[in-house]
């Protein structure tokens, strides 16, 4: 079980991690500033296993891989959105963080809801109800299963 942090549509990568923090040498130094302009308490409140749930076009804007990386470093188990911007989507898979398309979840959850995700089955459970989510293309699932692109290339 993890807690839901809910975000609106068109959340851009500057909002996930602003450019002034990109010069920090490590993701761990950056991660405390995650979503700073939208919810300054996010980084202190999110716990490993929690979820980010968003409307359309999550992660639009820059190609910064630091955006999915700070979420992963904070322990976010998966981002579930109605749709994703393509670079964010690809980066997430490459660093081994699940990104899941669900057209209905955003509209039925509230901030703070408890939810469960079964990645293998593609099933989300919130408040006793289940929702199916889209599975990844085979090529991407393979990279994700291996733990990201580095692990995949090292195979």
């Amino acid at each position, binding site marked *: 079980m993890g807690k839901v942090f809910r975000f609106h*549509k*068109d959340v*851009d990568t*500057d*909002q996930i991690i*602003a*450019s*002034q923090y*990109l*010069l*920090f*040498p490590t993701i761990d130094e950056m991660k405390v500033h995650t979503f700073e*302009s939208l919810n300054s308490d996010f980084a202190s409140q999110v716990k490993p296993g929690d979820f980010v749930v968003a409307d*359309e*076009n999550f992660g*639009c*804007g*820059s*190609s*910064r*891989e*630091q955006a999915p990386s700070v979420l992963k470093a904070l322990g976010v188990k998966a981002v579930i959105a109605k*749709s*994703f*911007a*393509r*670079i964010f989507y*690809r*980066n997430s898979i*490459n*660093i081994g963080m699940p990104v899941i398309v669900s057209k209905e979840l955003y509209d039925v959850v509230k901030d703070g809801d408890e939810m469960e995700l079964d990645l293998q089955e593609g099933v989300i459970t919130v408040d006793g109800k289940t929702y199916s989510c889209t599975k990844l*293309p085979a*090529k991407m699932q393979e990279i994700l299963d291996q733990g*990201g*692109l*580095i692990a995949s*290339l*090292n195979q």
Partner: protein
Amino acid sequence: MGHTLIEKIIGNKVGHEVKPGDIVTVDVDWCMIDDIMVPFAVQKFEEMGFDKVANPDSVVLIYDHFLPATQVDDSRHFRAGDEFADKYGIKRVHRTDGICHQLMTEAGYVKPGDIAFGTDSHTVTYGCVGAFSTGIGYTEMAGILGTGQLWIKVPETIRVEIDGTLPGNVTSKDVILRIIGDLTASGATYQALEFGGSTVDAMSVASRMTMSNMSVEAGAKCGVFVPDEKTCDYCRIPYDDSVKALQPDGDATYTKVMRYRAEDFVPVCACPSLVDNIKPVSEIKGTKVNQVFLGSCTNGRLEDLRTAAAYMKGKHVAPFVKMIVTPASRKIYREALADGTLEILSDAGAIITTPGCGLCCGRGGGILSDDEVVVATNNRNFLGRMGTSKVQIYLASPATAAATAVAGYITEA
């Protein structure tokens, strides 16, 4: 079945016909790594255990976002790039020449039909010469450095057709902003934009660059133009059969065709704080501004500076406005210096800065504070991009920026 331009470009590279949805592995002609991402790409390259760069001559390192350095940690990025270049025999390193997306075509690298990837989302810019180029993350870039290849999904295409003559105070910036407004910020996600029509044919390569550059703001994977004689002049290559083959078939399949009459375009702004929040300048006219920024890989080229200078000659920036002009490259800086453009802008009260990304990414001089208003010619007005999250950023054309700087409030030229 016919093919769109992007299907032709990718098909030529892989040596067989491709259709949207196909996943193919391509040999990469060009890898661009900018200063922000250099240390991270190097770290991932090492974690992957590679002992050499597959094709060092395809790699271009460009320092632009942090140049000249404004914070003590910035030079760490330059050092990481220099050490990596030395160790792996990378000769193409631009340390002070300008913005990456300007240099990748201007310096003679990316040509029609090439495939290029960069660690910055505006890598889509090279679609202006009929290349396939798009942004990727640094882990993926590290993979290309080691293998020379990347897998891609062939995108579907949206065709944008514009015919006729644009009004005098309308530039290609107004055109692409309007298209993004119509598509929305996610309307072209995963897809290619293909621009065509008599208006586009009449545009300079510089004007097309502005449109390719901003195609990512509608979520597009790339934004491509058919290469023509102007493209070949710019790239310093012959307009031969291999270039002429790079055009869509008459029976190509598009997910959507958007048609515009050039005469219907008006000067517009992307209003705070979304790139698809487009309004005609006439609707927001009178909004008082604190600063105007003319520059970036979107609109920092010679024709952009000349457009501003033509309007500002003999006029002066409003007393309470700071106008910052940042040429996109050293070449542009020198050309604008030689032809008197910079002198006109300086006489008008503008601050001329060194070439680079400057204020666009919120790193150069010109950071703003709560409730201040800036009209800028770059590509993003995201919350907090040029200072605090309460700064109001309006994106506009160079013509609108110049007129606004003189008036002190938003207005068309």
